[in-house]
């Protein structure tokens, strides 16, 4: 083992990001932080990596497996493993199998090659780091079918974008994304895989998570939207949107945070009337 990756555990400034998975597995332009690090290490010629994952290690193990996907020999250590191995009869987890200190110990709190761009200091740094990663992510050879449809706007496979939608760079649109008519996307937007943006919606300076539904005529601005969770990265305010037709997860079994509004609620008509009022 020449390299040890230490996964960040507790980052209170971005605690809501780790609600469903550890920070290294949070979706990030179609992959996750751990994917990018492992790809980077393979490019550097690494063949064996040890991952120390104290937060939900079972999810990390499920994601990386034995490393054969990258041609790596991988070992994922959790809290229990590190406790056991700290006993005198066992080796230190930060030493290699041969008892030799590793050449690299990396704390994965930034993207590979961008040490000056921290990910987890705040929601602002998370947003800025992801935007700065777009050119790197767009140019990797494994992004099959990704196209730059205009300068600074790249679109993934099987995405459907209405001809009347407006796209403003920089903008990353993942795979299998749907953008409805007259929607405004960008500048500064990442739509992760399988996101759905309804007609007339406006998304600017924001990230929409995978399988997230953004309802018709809604306005997502300076926010991280994932399922029904909406985080304003500027003010750090968090909202669990109570009505699925505004913002929700498309994954099954993830209902809105509270009883959904009646189908004939006044806002259904409001949704249709607002454009006329604003027009």
């Amino acid at each position, binding site marked *: 083992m020449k390299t040890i990756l230490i996964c960040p555990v507790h980052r209170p400034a971005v605690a809501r990001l780790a609600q469903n998975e550890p920070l290294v597995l949070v979706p990030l332009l179609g992959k996750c932080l751990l994917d990018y690090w492992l790809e980077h290490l393979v490019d550097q010629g690494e063949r064996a990596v040890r991952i120390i994952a104290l937060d939900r290690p079972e999810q990390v193990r499920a994601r990386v497996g034995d490393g054969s996907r990258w041609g790596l020999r991988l070992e994922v250590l959790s809290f229990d493993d590190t406790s056991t191995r700290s006993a005198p009869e066992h080796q230190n987890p930060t030493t290699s199998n041969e008892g030799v200190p590793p050449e690299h110990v990396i704390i994965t709190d930034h993207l590979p090659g961008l040490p000056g761009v921290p990910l987890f200091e705040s929601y602002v740094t998370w947003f800025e780091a992801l935007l700065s990663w777009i050119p790197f992510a767009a140019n990797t050879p494994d992004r099959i079918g990704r196209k730059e449809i205009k300068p600074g706007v790249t679109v993934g496979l099987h995405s459907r974008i209405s001809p009347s939608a407006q796209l403003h760079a920089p903008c990353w649109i993942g795979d299998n994304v749907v953008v409805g008519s007259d929607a405004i996307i960008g500048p500064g937007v990442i739509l992760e895989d399988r996101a759905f943006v309804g007609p007339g919606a406006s998304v600017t300076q924001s990230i929409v998570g995978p399988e997230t539904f953004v309802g018709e005529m809604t306005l997502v601005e300076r926010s991280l939207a994932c399922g029904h969770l909406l985080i304003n990265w500027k003010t750090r305010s968090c909202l669990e949107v109570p009505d699925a037709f505004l913002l929700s997860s498309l994954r099954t079994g993830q209902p809105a945070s509270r009883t959904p509004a*009646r189908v004939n609620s006044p806002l259904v008509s409001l949704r249709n009337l607002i454009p006329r009022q604003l027009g």
Partner: protein
Amino acid sequence: MKIKHDGYRMSVSHIPELSTVNSTAFREEVQAAIPPTLHTLDIDMSQTHFVDSSGLGALFSLYRNTGNGGGLKLRLLNPAPDILQLIELTQMHHLFEINHD
């Protein structure tokens, strides 16, 4: 809920939530209390901890029933940050003036 007015300015306060549970009553009570000479309608949301689409619909009904805000000043006072997020998500901030102390 408390409603006060002096014929010119009306203030609605002590609204713990605006949701499916109470939005109809809220709308009807406020609507009934509006005097014909009203110039400013203040809805104090400083104690409001939950709003859903029914609550926003009630606010929108007030906007509609007061002549789409024409000539009448409609203000939402001190909404909590998460409620302000919902107001902005639905673009209601284009219809109401949002004031913070």
